[in-house]
């Protein structure tokens, strides 16, 4: 494998193709970092719970009557059966489906059927559920497998100043903004595509041209990637009039644009002048990942949205288009949808890794620096062997 003067590749090809790498990443990265578990509004009532996968750990979050969330490893202390499935609502206790061991919402084991006969002398207090950590940050739910995890503020604090100056918790989720994609590519390829500034003006020449890619400000802050670019001049000039959706309040005029950070590991945000979304990559196999996108917009009336869409329609007809003029049903490059353009690019790269003729090409000095930096971050986490 040839190494270019610019330091590519940082990670070997196997990092994108081998099961062994994948397993080590699950243990060393995804089981040791804060994982996105959903939106704050996913759990609003006492007794309500959701369960999520964080690397090798299945964790459930449940709300107590004090409206505080608790997180536990979703494993019965008897023989390990999963306690809660997906999402739902429980009363004051959690009962294992297998032998009906029952825990309270603090995770204490409170009842064991036929205790006297089958478990004489058992100390229930030694068999409580294993605790995990949960917190809310930027309107999102986060879990960490470790009960004594470093605080979420510690983990994200340094990158916070580089994010949009509004509070996402004040926005409302839209159904149209939800999508889930199964992508035939390693999670790192998707991350690299997300943070690659070089491709924006090319792959998305007709779909993301409302931003000025020549004025990108981006850098890694610890393991997290921060990114901002301003609106393109033609759009900025009359943004109040031609924004296709109501503007999100709180952005100073001279910072109008898009904040597009990639939080580690694999949690992208798209924080723009009129929408806010999470781009959550979950690795499922070395060559397969799931991306789930959820979107929030300004808390305005339906009428405000209709009005903005109508008022701006002709403007955007003029300015947006497709990269190629093929059949949008067959060719993603003719779809006019930047997401499909990206998926196409990622899957093609993954495929080419299989070819015996594949060789890493030169990497661009500025636009692709984040790609190399991200590989270094991953490499660093993979070294830690606890």
């Amino acid at each position: 494998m040839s190494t270019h003067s610019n330091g590519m590749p940082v990670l070997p090809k196997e990092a994108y193709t081998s099961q062994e790498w994948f397993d080590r990443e699950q243990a060393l990265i995804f089981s040791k970092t804060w994982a996105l578990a959903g939106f704050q509004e996913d759990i609003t009532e006492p007794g309500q719970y959701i369960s999520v996968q964080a690397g090798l750990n299945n964790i459930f979050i449940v709300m107590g009557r004090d409206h505080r969330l608790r997180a536990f490893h979703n494993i019965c202390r008897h023989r390990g059966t999963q306690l809660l499935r997906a999402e739902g609502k429980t009363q004051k206790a959690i009962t294992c489906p297998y032998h009906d061991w029952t825990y309270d919402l603090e995770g204490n084991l409170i009842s064991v059927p036929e205790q006297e006969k089958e478990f004489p002398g058992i100390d229930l207090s030694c068999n409580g559920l294993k605790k995990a950590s949960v917190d809310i940050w930027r309107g999102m739910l986060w879990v960490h497998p470790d009960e004594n995890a470093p605080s979420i503020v510690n983990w994200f604090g340094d990158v916070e100043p580089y994010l949009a100056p509004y509070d996402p918790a004040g926005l409302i989720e839209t159904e149209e903004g939800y999508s889930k994609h199964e992508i035939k590519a390693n999670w790192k390829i998707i991350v690299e595509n997300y943070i690659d500034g070089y491709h924006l003006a090319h792959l998305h020449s007709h779909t993301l041209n409302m931003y000025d890619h020549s004025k990108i400000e981006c850098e890694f802050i610890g393991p997290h990637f921060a990114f901002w670019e301003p609106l393109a001049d033609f759009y900025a000039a009359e943004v109040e009039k031609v924004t296709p959706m109501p503007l999100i309040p709180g952005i100073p005029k001279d910072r109008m644009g898009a904040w597009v950070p990639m939080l580690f590991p694999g949690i992208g945000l798209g924080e723009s002048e009129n929408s806010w979304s999470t781009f959550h990559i979950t690795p499922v196999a070395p060559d397969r990942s799931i991306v789930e996108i959820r979107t929030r917009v300004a808390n305005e009336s339906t009428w405000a949205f209709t009005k903005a869409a109508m008022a701006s329609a002709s403007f955007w007809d003029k300015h947006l288009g497709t990269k190629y003029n093929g059949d949008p049903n067959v060719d993603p490059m003719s779809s006019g949808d930047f997401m499909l353009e990206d998926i196409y690019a990622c899957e093609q790269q993954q495929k080419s890794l299989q070819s015996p003729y594949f060789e890493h090409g030169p990497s661009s000095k500025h636009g692709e620096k984040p790609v190399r930096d991200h590989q270094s971050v991953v490499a660093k986490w993979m070294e830690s062997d606890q």
Partner: protein
Amino acid sequence: MRNVVYPLRVSEVISETKQAKTIRFDVPTELIDEFHWRPGQHITIELEANGEKLRRPFTISAAQGNGRSLQITVKPNPDGIVSKYLCSAVKAGHQLNVMPPFGGFTLVPRSDHQRTLYFFAGGSGITPAMAMIEAALEDEPRSKLYVLYANRSADGIIFKEHLEQLAERYPSQLEVRHILSKPSMWSMFSPWKSGRISKDVILEYLSECRPIAQDAQYFICGPDSMNNDVRGALQNCDVPADRIHAESFGGDTGAQTEVTSVPALLKLDYYGEAIELEVAEGQSIMNAVRAAGLEPPYSCQSGICGACKAQIKSGAVHMQARMALEDAEVAKGAILTCQSYATTPELSVSFR
């Protein structure tokens, strides 16, 4: 150092309500370190009345820093000689004998954390809360503070304006609600609720004041009856005991249980010095130690302030009251010597 009294000059006396006064002190430069305090701590004031030394703890009602002085806020207690004297006779320029800050009911701000801090204050119980609130607003800016403040009527609310100003200045960090048990019909002030703090009120309060930061801590400082009600109501809402921190303010300390104490041989580790002495039946450890001519630190003598804290190394004691100690401390052997009576004929206790 540990049991020293300093004369401090009173710099200012402020009337907070008809009854409550705030007394501010000048701390001379050479005593700044000695009088460094954490929010929630107390100082002890010593007075001489009829040839007898009286010591009483008072909670410091401001956080250190930002130009704030050492201050206590006092309401005259009908049978409290010291508090009555402080509220009626003390003027700016007077000297008072003061012992340095102490006490374990503190809040240490953590700037790199986000927490949800609940304060349930009753009457003059706002004093430690006030110091904690100021400290958390300034030094823990990501945390959210919810204050529920119980009083009889609006004109008895200590720090009413100060709290309003803070809530205006830190709108996303601080939310204050009032509950009045006997609101005056002529008052313009409309509280969040009237009546007592009941289970239902707490349930409603918690569902309206939800934690964003999931590290939630609950501080209760009011009269015993309120503290018990709030603690019970919180536990009824699944709040784990180790997140609840309570301190008693005013009101009697509840029925004292009959002590079955025994005479004992007490082996003391008194700041590194080994001393043996006798404790009589029905005598508190504190009194036995003082009777032997030693000067251990103490202040309230009713189990509230924690000044007389020591560690029990062997043997056992019965504690009549232990408000000043958290369960975890008791588990590790902490005792309040003013409240402790020997229940084994031999015990060893260490003062540090």
